[in-house]
């Protein structure tokens, strides 16, 4: 599904070139559950952003479902990821001015889904995460865990093949964190959704079936 070949990304500081990612080669198949680990500044988030097409590499090739992402224009890339990728953030990143319902609905608006279909799809999500009663609340009225549930619901609404999660439990207590991980596992096992998460926690990393360790922009150990 995802194939990275010799991916490098850098910034220039004076005459020095500082590598954020250096010569990354990864193959990720459909249905995998990957955890990316590493100390702060090791390039975890950068790698996730490159995979999520929010950022592009300076060198190397990136194939997503055999499509050469590195040659695509921004608009085509945007089209590609809005069909296939859902994002979950550490800080949830819900829109404060929208209700729970509307937040979940947002990605569908950008895919021109019909109003009746949208209603049904959002309804399913609310059911699935047990937040039907909260659908008219604004994010400010929810606990962190509930907000992250909404965030995941929003990531899943467009039925993506791939979920990218950047420290999804970083702002949550351990019980809430476990719940989120359970949901990820279930998604991965039952629906075959590919999941790539960045995490600091060994415990959370263990939910995945493969761990990629990064250090100074390089893959240290590929287990």
């Amino acid at each position, binding site marked *: 599904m995802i194939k990275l070949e010799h991916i490098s990304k850098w910034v220039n500081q004076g005459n020095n070139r500082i590598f954020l990612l250096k010569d990354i080669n990864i193959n990720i198949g459909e249905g995998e559950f990957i955890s990316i680990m590493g100390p702060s500044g090791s390039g975890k*988030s950068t790698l996730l*952003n490159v995979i*999520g097409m*929010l*950022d592009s590499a300076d060198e190397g090739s990136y194939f997503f479902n055999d499509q050469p992402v590195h040659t695509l224009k921004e*608009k085509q890339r*945007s089209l590609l*990821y*809005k069909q296939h990728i859902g*994002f979950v*953030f550490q*800080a949830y*990143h*819900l*829109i*404060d*001015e*929208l209700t729970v319902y*509307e937040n979940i*609905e*947002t*990605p569908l*608006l*950008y*895919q*021109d889904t019909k109003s009746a279909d949208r209603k049904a799809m959002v309804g399913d999500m609310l059911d699935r995460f047990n937040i039907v009663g909260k659908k008219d609340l604004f994010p400010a009225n929810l606990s962190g865990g509930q907000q992250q549930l909404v965030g995941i619901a*929003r990531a899943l609404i*467009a039925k993506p093949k791939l979920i990218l999660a950047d420290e999804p439990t970083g702002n949550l207590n351990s019980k809430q964190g476990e719940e989120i991980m359970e949901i990820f596992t279930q998604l991965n096992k039952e629906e075959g959704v590919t999941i790539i998460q960045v995490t600091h926690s060994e415990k959370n990393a263990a939910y995945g079936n493969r761990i990629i360790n990064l250090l100074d922009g390089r893959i240290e150990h590929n287990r």
Partner: protein
Amino acid sequence: MFRNYLKLAYRNIIRQKGYSAINILGLAIGIAACLLILQYVAYELSYEDMIDNKESIYRVNQDRYDNGKLSTQWASGAFAVGNSFKDAFPEIESYVKIVPDDNAVVITNSENPLKIDFPYFVSEDFFKVFSYPLISGDKSTLLKEPFTAAISISLAKKIFGDNNPIGESIQLNKSQLYKVTGVFADFPANSHMGSDLLLSYQSFIQIQAKYNNNPEQAWLWDGCITYLKLKPGTDPNALEKKFPGIVEAAVGTDLKSFNASVTYLLQPIKDIHLNSNRIGEARPTGNSRTVYLLFGISLFIIVIAWINYINLATARSINRAREVGIRKVAGSLRIDLIKQFMLESALMNAIAIVLAFLIILAFLPVFNYTTNQQLSISQLNLSVFWTVLVGLFIVGSLLSGIYPALVLSGFKPISVLKGKMSTSSQGVLLRKGLVVFQFTASLSLLIGTAIVYKQIKFMKSQEIGLTINQTLVLKRPIVVSDSIYTRTQTSFKQEISKLPSVSGVTVSNAIPGESVNQNAGGIRLITDPESKQNQYRIISMDYDYPQLYGLKIIAGKTFSLEKGTSGNPVLFNQTGIKQLGFPNPADAIGKQIFFWGDTMRIDGVVADFHQQSLQSNFEPLILVLRPNTRGYMSIRMQTTDVKSTIASIEQKWKQYFPGNQLEYFFLDAHFDAQYKADNQFALIFGIFTFLAIFVACMGLFGLASYITIQRTKEIGIRKVLGASVQQIIFLFYKELGLMVSLSFIVAIPLAWFAGKKWLQSFAFQTNLNLLVFALPFILIVLIGLITISFQTIKASLRNPAISLRTE
């Protein structure tokens, strides 16, 4: 999708109350001001719009040259112009002559005598050329016959009530009868001419025939306004070039012997109201400068409001950056976001328009009262109104919305979601630039206001060279038999002089505060050749005038009844005697002049005085002694018991001039009335300047609050490093001071240039000193400082421990 955006825009407006209020109120004030001013501008531009074929109708203006120099410019010209031009040039379809009668007439055969101020004699094609609506009467025969008249519907109602006026007669001044053959709708206010009483031009010809005058062939007799209707396809410029030939053939030799010449020029009637200010206009004309200045001000205000929107929207973009990031990650394209933000600005503008309506409804009466306009919602020119409204909405939404939309939609999701957002220096620079623009506009307007007020104060405070206070002026009686007029007037004057509270009485044909209507050409020293003659304005007066009005004699002597003044004595003013060729006035005393076939002697020269407001220059004047002259009676009186004095005067008036209404006014008020238009202009200018500054300040206030929030961390760090509260506040003040100073540098030449341009329409101008510029500058600095102080002081007092923790 659209509904979602709309909902979001609505929630944003509700949530950010202060921000929305500043934007919406600013926009609403701007739109309301724009609508009001544009309504006024549209009205001023709408003159003659009601006339069909107005494009092919021209007035024939006359420029008069004496000794090779342009001396006078007339709206009227020689009486023979209309018929002579029509006979000579086939491209002229028809002509209209109008002879406005300066003297009022009284209709004496109605129940109550009715005074008509400006009756016109008009030639028979009047209603064929000018499509003013006729209510009754036959266009083809109307005003053809001598002693027929057309009257306005309101006059008809006054005289005849509900009866049909057609065929009835009206009697003027107890003498001539005119048969009413037509009734027309009252002249609209936005017409350059207008009268309630139109008399047939044939009547004028017959009246003049009694004095052996034939206006149809009179080339040296001025005072007839001529209009030409040209056939389709005629080039007016080409036609204009053929006029001199006719004039040359008719009066070339005569004019040459006076060393004079006249040029006739065609002016489209549509241009008259705003671009003509000639002698003998049928109605006072407008001022295009005022119209365009006000138009400019209204643009300033709306642009200031738009800038508020742009500045505030971009300043708070950080608050919305996260939303942009999320939406992009959720799959939004940039164009979707641009649409969303544009919709927000459109909604904001739409709400502002509704509010603008309410503002107009609430303040229209105040506006009308202070500016002496008669705008009303029902009278609004609807096409202009809607065009402006829709135009402002579209342009406003686009202009204020597009830049913030582009900035906001351009954010990169990973940077904003990671909180790595920083304000771009480019955006800050633009914001500062726009604020500098707002200050420049505010300062220019304020300096403009200062200039206008200074000029008015200057004009009012200047010594006019005449004593006009405590002077009551009576208008002359109209219905008096010619044979006894002189005797009656003399006796009446004597009676008034005897009143204990009256210290002096004089009769003259002109009074200060009005232009001198009598103009005389052909005046020269008796020893000079005919070619050296020139034009002068003439005031006829009795013995008492120079003394009562306190004229300053700078050479020779004044008229004196006691010492006796034999012969035909005249006084010149300084400008007049200079024009006659005497730089030193004393040299002219005792010299004789040729004056319309008479010889007159120069007895004295008076210092120049302001016959009119300081807008007009000194004119060459000759004061002629005519003890029997008819006109105004000026009465110098004590102001202790005005009521009883006037009552006594009225009692005598009724006795001497029965059937005439006593009309009087106080001269100082009459003189000041000349400044009415200027005062109004100053007031309108002041009001809209205030609005502009107010809107700009609201924006500044909003901007200051965002900037201080964004600089909370910086303030905290500075305080931790040991900066005092004063030093922090000074930091902000310094920035503001710099921006205002920069604006000042831009505003000075701008305001100076515009001010000079405006002052050009005044013969006597105030000087533009430092104060005119410095005071507005100081005022704007103060207003600006106060505006930002609310936020700045609050921010600088905050405990750094707290502000740094929140980061």
